[in-house]
């Protein structure tokens, strides 16, 4: 693993400056069923292909960003500030 991530704040940086935060998930509403919560805690899509992921620029600006990465090729097609709407 040696690819670059474009931090919206710091530019192209080595992936070693970042901490991986896992794929983006949708947190259930507070009154959701316990099944929904369990699935949110433990189930992951684990896509073979492009997925949106959290990355934290730990040895940089210490901000969370969202990257679209192909899990097979490590090609990062997009990085952006998170927008959870």
């Amino acid at each position, binding site marked *: 693993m040696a690819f670059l991530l474009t931090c919206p704040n710091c530019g192209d940086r080595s992936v070693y400056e970042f901490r991986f935060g896992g794929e983006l998930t949708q947190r259930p509403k507070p009154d959701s069923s*316990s099944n929904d919560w369990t699935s*949110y*805690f433990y189930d992951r899509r684990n896509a073979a292909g492009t997925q949106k992921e959290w990355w934290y620029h*730990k040895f940089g600006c210490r901000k*969370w960003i969202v990257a679209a990465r192909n899990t097979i090729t490590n090609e990062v097609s997009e990085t952006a500030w998170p927008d959870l709407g």
Partner: protein
Amino acid sequence: MTKLKAAPRLDPHPTQLIDRSASIEFAFGGRPVQAFEGDTVASALYAAGVRTFSRSFKYHRPRGLLCVAGRCPNCLVNVDGVPNVRSCTEAARPGMNVTSQNAWPSLDRDILSVLDRFGPLMPVGFYYKTFHRPKLFWRLAQPIIRRVAGLGKIDVDSAHPAGYAHQNLHTDVAVVGGGATGISAALSANLGAAVTLIDDSPVLGGHLRFDTTSHSVVPSVDPSPGFEVAAELVRQVRSSAGITVLSNSVAFGLYEDNLLGVLTTDRLVKRRAGRIVMATGSIEQPLVFDGNDRPGVMLSSGAQRLVRLYGVKPGETAVVATATNEGYAAALDLHNAGVRVAALVDTRPEPAWGALPDAVRAAEIPTLVSHAVTLAEGRAEVKAAVVQKLEGGVPIGERQRLACDIICMSGNLEPADALVRQSGGLDIPKNVYAAGSVAGAGNLAQAVDQGRQAGTLAAGSSSELPLAGSSPPERAAPFLSGKKSFVCFCEDISTADIDQAIDEGFDDIQTLKRYSTVTMGPCQGKMCHAAVAAISARATGKSLSEVGSTTSRPPLQPVPMSALAGRVHLPIKRTPMDRKHIDLGAKMVDLGPWRRPFSYGSPQDESISVRERVGIIDVSTLGKLDVRGPDSPALLDKVYTHNFSGLRNGRIRYGVLCADNGTIMDDGTVTRLADDRYFITTTSGNVESIEEWFKWWMAGTDIEAYVTNVTSGFAAINVAGPKARETLSKLTDIDLSTDGFRYMRSKEGVVAGVPSVLLRIGFVGETGWEVHFPGEFGEHMWDALMDAGRDFGIAPFGLEAQRILRLEKGHIIVGQDTDIVSTPLDSDMEWVVRFEKEDFIGRGGLVAARDRGLTNKLVGFRMRDGTVPDDGDPIVDRGQPIGKVTSARLSPTIGKGFGLAWVPVELAEEGRNISIRIAGADVPATVSLTPVYDSEGKRLKE
């Protein structure tokens, strides 16, 4: 022992690297060897008459120099305790201690060479089929196989002395390969970019630097000998300020986004390049015939290197076997060096044409066209070459025996494309250009031209297509099938083995590789990949491009583990009062990133002094977060299970952070300093991840709050004990009276002249204040407190005393008393969870946990006799473990062992009997739900 007698060297010549005026001596197997400055270990040994350099991996056959270019497995030796050093690229240094490896008792008489006679016991794929049945046999065979397997011995005491440093560097353009192509690329690229030129030899110039034939690189300039062309190119590189040259450096890996892994003699360089030009050249291939691994059979370029670079005469009589014009150049070099060339054996059906063959004819070197060497006779040294006529690639007819002591062989030149192919696909990755013979250039002028073009493209900002190399024609030198016709020198695999593996069904090159281990040895396919592909093509009736190639992976060349590991970096954080602890003779411990005082002598005495008088402890290691902004109350309500928007200014509340599934992540105190400002402490090791955690829950939301990690900016001292108030009041005007400064309140003020934040909390269960202040006043504050408390018998206390004191109060330590599945509910802290809040992180998981009901609970216990359990001892019921002790100590208060433990919920009642297995014996204890010390919490509040 006797000195190895060196044969005289050839006459001096400008291509030679040796300095005859500088003699050096080193030891080989205990015997002194004479060498010159500029020699490699191998050139000096060869000049001294050494022919067997190593023993082969499987059959322990004697092996001699093959490539003399660092690309094969044949010359591996041990140098000063470092195994698997390639002697043909290792510079000879005075006093070095060279020994052979993989041979016992000696290179010349290796007992394990009997294995060579037992070839049938080790058929191809023998890892998977031999010695497995009967079962007993495998058990006997395994340890023996283990002992003889592997190459070289690791001497743990003689690692690379200083360790390899790691370096991260950037460059606009990296050029891999310092031959004519690479140099031309670097020079062109340097017109518009910073360039790094990476070359694995000690001297730039590639094979051109020992080429004596004439070349005209620029049409208008008169042709001149190759080595002079090379010298001129090198001169131009040296005078270009923008080119950094890394010599003796192997680019062993090409990683994502143009990261090159480069191994130099003392560093591992991770070089990120904007563009890369691959000018890695080509690799001369061995020919395949019986006995082609005998010492004395070498690549023709290997023999040329000995002659041209080191002035070493490779033998007296040579047979040169070739499939290209390269062999003609070698035959001429040998002839000119005074070696009698008994025959030049050309496998091609038609006589060769051009300047080189003409020169060979002029020198009257006997030439046999459409012939092949089919056998090298001899054992530890070549005695003769057997030559036969070829028809349709098959040897037929009479066997001619030509006496000789060396056989030089030259198969095709295969593109050295393994590094480019590491990118995975067949396509050249973007921003990578290939040029020169790796890209199919047929002669020097073409190669130089391609180099220039690639350099210009790489320096420009345009991203044109990579150069399409004129791909080399599909051809392969003929090969002969035999049990001792070696394809793979690293793993001792013959053509017969490959044929058999294909017969057994492993006819895809990838499975063939895995089954036979061909291409998997130290040379990583450099000497064998082309031959395996050709054999596979013939056996399966496919074309070479249909056969394809095995996956190329880093490292291209062996890389020492110590280079990958790098130097040992164990940075340790010290608090601002570190020197005070050392002066006091504290016993220090490393915990997480910090070095902290464990004790200043006796933890029990330190505990008593806190309980009876006053103690101070350095708690600067506490994680400290400053949270401010209008939405900070909302943020804390979200991440903590408790409520913090309702906390009044100047008040403190204990807080627990849970993961969203309800398990405990961290705990600490939250102090509200103002409407929009909080001061938070976390456990010492967790502050970084808690900072990340807070920011994560804010990311992408409109919560307006700012989290700053102020851990290293602040020092902190906890002053605790019945005399804490009197001690502290000597240093401050702040009202510290029971009613003026209540438990769980905070104040900002000046202590010992230093602006501080005081938190009245009681982790150790006494009246006390945690004083936080700017770190630069650490030693000053420590001294001031020690002075102020002298009359009251103040004493510093360490981590261990703090652990005893907090345990007496039943205060937990996250990570010690809780684990990855503990929740606040089973850790007996239900009171910190505010289920009435609509949402908080962990609520979903905690609601589920509450509904499920608890199975285990964290409780206090007391021993009935004088035993003290260890942390981690099991709680047992009729011999079965049902729980465990998380913390246990001897209590100075009750004089008995006590602690915290996880027990099944039905045992979590006051007075229940439990058994703890301590050192093999089951010892009775009693569950106790009240703290050992001050169960009503009066001392805290006094």
